């Protein structure tokens, strides 16, 4: 060992070193998740009234009011949620739960599910407790979501995507759209969803508010969005690798391409297999931009992977980045597509693959 190394190793390590590392990581997480407040504009409110008038589900004005702030803000990083709100899918639940111990009133507004994911729109407010840092954080906080059947079976539901959150300072109200595992299998059953624990974020530490917020309803068909699956098995080459689009799954919440490829599995020296980021996935993520306070959006002008349908560009849903796939499979998730008659996958500038048989 050289003397220079010996000298450098004499530099004492401060006790709070790892805390500083954590702070750096936390900064990134908060940028990805934090939703800054956007002032409501009259124009946006007018548009909302128009959409509310067009929606075909019995979504009341009060419910629209509950998620309009998220909808009108450009801070949404989940195009699937936007589509749900815009087209009026899902069903109003309109149930209120009062958490007496913590003096928080919880309003359950709307739920929609398909065979991949559930979206639950919730608002909560308090007269006495400042809710600025309160979040139902299923991704990395202390919060958990459970489904309880009439028979008493209780099953945890994992998060899918980041979900979206908006804090209305004036009303001291949190408006949040949660994304978690599908509950479609409970169709026709009386079920209870339970939100366990609230996560309190601050720069210094993350705290847990122990509680359970329940909502009970019968899951009828109106809550469920259909999924249209197109089996493709279409091969294409990109950067000397071969990829196969196994199938495309269209729903009101998302468009999901299930893809396998020749560079998705890494085998280490012990023969263990790991999922690798393929060249295609790198290209997909190339157009991803992380914005302070608004999560993931498309970096305009950057090369990426998009869908094209009816002349419109359909953006990736980067907030679904952590959806786990089977080994050797990549789920490429985009915003929903309405007109599915002629959909094209556009990779970079030159490669175009039709998603029609």
């Amino acid at each position: 060992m050289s003397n220079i190394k010996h000298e450098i190793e004499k530099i004492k390590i401060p006790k709070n070193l790892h805390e500083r590392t954590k702070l750096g990581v936390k900064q990134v997480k908060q940028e990805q998740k934090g939703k800054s407040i956007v002032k409501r504009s009259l124009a946006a409110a007018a548009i909302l009234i128009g959409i509310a008038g067009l929606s075909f589900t019995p979504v009341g004005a009060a419910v629209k009011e509950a998620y309009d702030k998220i909808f009108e803000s450009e801070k949404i990083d989940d195009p699937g949620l936007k589509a749900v709100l815009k087209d009026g899918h899902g069903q109003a639940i309109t149930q209120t739960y009062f958490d007496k111990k913590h003096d928080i009133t919880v309003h359950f507004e709307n739920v929609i599910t398909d065979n991949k994911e559930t979206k639950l729109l919730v608002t909560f407010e308090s007269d006495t407790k400042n809710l600025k840092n309160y979040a139902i954080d299923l991704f990395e906080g202390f919060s958990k979501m459970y489904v309880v059947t009439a028979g008493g079976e209780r099953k945890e539901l994992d998060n899918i995507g980041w979900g979206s959150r908006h804090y209305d300072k004036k009303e001291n109200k949190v408006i949040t759209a949660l994304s978690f595992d599908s509950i479609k299998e409970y169709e026709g059953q009386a079920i209870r969803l339970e939100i366990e624990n609230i996560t309190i974020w601050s720069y210094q530490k993350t705290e847990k508010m122990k509680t359970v917020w329940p909502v009970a309803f019968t899951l009828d068909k109106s809550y469920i969005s259909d999924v249209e699956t197109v089996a493709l098995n279409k091969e294409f080459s990109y950067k000397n690798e071969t990829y196969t689009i196994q199938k495309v799954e269209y729903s009101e919440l998302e468009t999901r391409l299930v893809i396998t490829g020749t560079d998705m599995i890494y085998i280490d020296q012990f023969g263990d297999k790991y999922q690798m980021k393929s060249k295609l996935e790198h290209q997909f993520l190339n157009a991803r931009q992380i914005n302070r306070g608004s999560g993931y959006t498309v970096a305009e002008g950057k090369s990426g992977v998009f869908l094209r349908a009816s002349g419109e560009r359909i953006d990736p849903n980067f907030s679904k980045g952590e959806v786990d796939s089977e080994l050797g499979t990549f789920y490429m998730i985009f915003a929903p597509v309405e007109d599915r008659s002629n959909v094209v996958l556009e990779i970079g500038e030159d490669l175009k693959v039709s998603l029609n048989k």
Partner: protein
Amino acid sequence: MIRLVHKAQKGNDKAFLKLFQQYEEDIYRMAYVYVKNESDALDVVQEVAYRSFKKINTLKSPEYFKTWLIRIAITCSLDLMRKNKKVVHLKPEYQERIGLEEEDVPLSITLEELLEQLNEHERSIVLLKFYEGYSFKEISELVDMPLGSVKSVLYRALAKLRKEFKEADFYE
């Protein structure tokens, strides 16, 4: 490790912290050699954690995670140095003799000399060679410099240190 990198690339901060923790002491000490005080070196570590987690999707080969981190650490250290040109005078408590593998010339160096006498390039290459143990080829890739230049900068740095020692020796 590959699996942890992949998890981190999916946004899993716990996986990233587990990975980063293995190298944070190295990063802190390297940063200290540049910025010469605890407070700024801690700032560098936080900034390296921030930048690397934010950009982990750009890491194409998980097996090069450590090298990638070190490159970021050097960049952050230089950024901070340029931002606040602080000079901290350390008091050397001792002087030792050093034998260099490549040359059979005795050399003595203290931390203070290392901190005070070398410019940014020299500091980077000395750190990578003697603290991190990288080969000349690896260093040339890390600092984006031709192999010949890396060698000549290192020898220049060592000559500087030797020169300082001789001067100090002369006045003792």
